[in-house]
């Protein structure tokens, strides 16, 4: 079912083979680590110690690592934190971005130019780490979840992409509603947004992924480990290999209980960090080119 044009000669066998191998390798490079991590997280103690590291060949499967992680304690708590921050943050960011993108999508409107200029100018010069920190701390946001949400709540790039998309919607569509007396809010909700589902989904994903992955802001602004989001936990217990269960109140493991292998637990944390992205991604992915490129192109 190739749709190669009539004038193109059929690819040579060797050429096609080489291309196939290269593409398979590329795809494998992405998928293989994920496969091994997932498999290890699902393996029993014996399988893991037999493999002496990551498990490549499926042995006996076990959900013990996940049961351990979600029995309350550090990881459970951090997942809740990350989920909460992601949901609240994405809702705020998307709302603010959609509103502003629409508000700025009518050139000629009052103050349209200076406001757009103010937004575009943020591309050029960042305030720097220290002034940001001082601001967040003087607003009293240190050790609050707002410190993960508010400083990056609006991304100028996302706003510009969205605005460009809205500008591509023919004015006549909304004008007819305007003549019927619809308010701008109404037009945005009933006409513009339904026509922009793809780009909204993509920008929403960008924001959500940003919040889910937020790591550095948490390191900067959260001193209280009880508030750590998942990425910080991932760094502590997996990357730096600190012990997950020692000295953690509220997570006392019964001595002598058959613990799931620690590597399996570590990999289970990795999978938990990975999962939402893997889960949401396929639904949004098909909009990438359409939503973003077309948006960015007109920016």
């Amino acid at each position, binding site marked *: 079912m190739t749709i190669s044009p009539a004038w193109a000669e059929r690819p040579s066998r060797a050429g096609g083979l080489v291309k196939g191998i290269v593409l398979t390798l590329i795809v494998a490079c992405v998928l293989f680590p994920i496969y091994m991590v997932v498999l290890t997280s699902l393996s029993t103690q014996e399988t893991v110690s037999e493999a002496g590291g990551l498990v490549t060949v499926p042995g006996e499967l076990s959900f013990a690592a996940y049961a351990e992680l979600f029995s309350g304690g550090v990881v459970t708590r951090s997942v809740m934190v990350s989920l909460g921050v992601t949901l609240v943050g994405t809702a705020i960011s998307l709302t603010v971005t959609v509103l502003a993108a629409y508000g700025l999508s009518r050139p000629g409107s009052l103050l349209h130019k200076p406001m757009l200029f103010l937004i575009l100018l943020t591309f050029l010069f960042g305030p720097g780490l220290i002034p940001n920190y001082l601001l967040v701390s003087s607003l009293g946001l240190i050790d609050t979840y707002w410190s993960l949400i508010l400083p990056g709540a609006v991304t100028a790039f996302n706003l*510009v992409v969205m605005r460009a998309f809205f500008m591509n919607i023919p004015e006549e569509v909304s004008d007819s509603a305007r003549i019927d007396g619809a308010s701008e809010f109404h037009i945005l909700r009933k006409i513009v947004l339904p026509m922009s589902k793809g780009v909204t989904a993509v920008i929403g994903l960008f924001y959500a992924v940003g919040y889910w992955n937020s*790591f550095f802001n948490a390191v900067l602004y959260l001193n209280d480990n009880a508030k750590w989001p998942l990425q910080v936990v991932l760094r502590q217990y997996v990357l730096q290999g600190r012990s997950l269960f020692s000295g953690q109140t509220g997570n006392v493991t019964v001595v002598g209980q058959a613990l799931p292998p620690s590597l399996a637990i570590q990999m289970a944390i990795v999978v938990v960090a990975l999962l939402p992205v893997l889960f949401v991604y396929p639904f949004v992915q098909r909009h990438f080119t359409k939503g973003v490129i077309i948006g960015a192109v007109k920016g």
Partner: protein
Amino acid sequence: MNTGPAGDLTSPAGTGTTKDDGKRGARTSRSSRGPLPARLRRDWQLLLMTLPAIGLLVVFHYVPLLGNVIAFQDYSPYVGFVDSAWVGLSNFQWLMLDESFWDATLNTLSITTFQLVFYFPVPIMLAVLLDSVVRPRLRLFIQGIVYMPHFFSWVLVVTLFQQMFGGAGLLSQTLRDHGYSGFDLMTNPDTFLVLVTAETIWKDAGWGTIIFLAALAAINQNLYEAAAVDGASRWRRLWHITLPGLRPVIILLLILRLGEALNVGFEQFFLQRDAVGRDAAEVLDTFVYWRTLLTGEWSYGAAAGLVKGLVGLILILVANKVAHRFGEQGIYKRS
């Protein structure tokens, strides 16, 4: 930063206009003239909609921008901006004499250079390869896979690399099983450049293809047909049609990348600084972090951040000028 390249994607022949105001003006009835009260009555809803975003940007971007004054002070959080003593440029003088600052600068620049040579061409090659996959379903599938790592956090990426190439990682393990000595790529300062570039490629090369795929899709298919009829081989078509078609995008992204030379990213280096050591992994961003938040030398850190920001600004402006010289749009329009 990614807004620019596009201009010429829509109008490869330079026909279409991307100046939205001009284009809009032709078909919109919204006038930018008229008495203020009337315009306010007409546009207050739009203004109201834009306010939250502007508010957030002012508070979290423009206000901290002013906070940079502490670079000229001997700032103490207990005294505040207003009462901290002014010290002129002495923080900057110290900075210029600080060897570790120059080490961080050198590291940043060598990482930028290395990535420019070894990372930059990868998305282009990958895009050409992906573009040659003609079965739509297969192509969408592969694209979906290669875009994906872009959405993983740096912690995750570094963790995965550690599991593959670390001392207890898969590769080392396999080598040991076969009688070779294991190694630890994750803690070796000498190969750090290779490591971070490999990580960047794994994470972002796929995502980087999007812009090139769009450019490839904009190339007139008739050119290929005509060339094929004239007897041009696949490689000649690649050389004489595909690459020239990509040229504007390549040049533009290259220029923009140069404008971002001091921004190599924070988290990737922050995460690996302990493992490979300061000498290899300290970049300007991590320098500011470690020098300030751990020692409380706020003013010094702010000075370092300000220098980086200013040099970055100059680089962007210069890059944009160059982009305009090449007839491209740059990140902002020439007005």
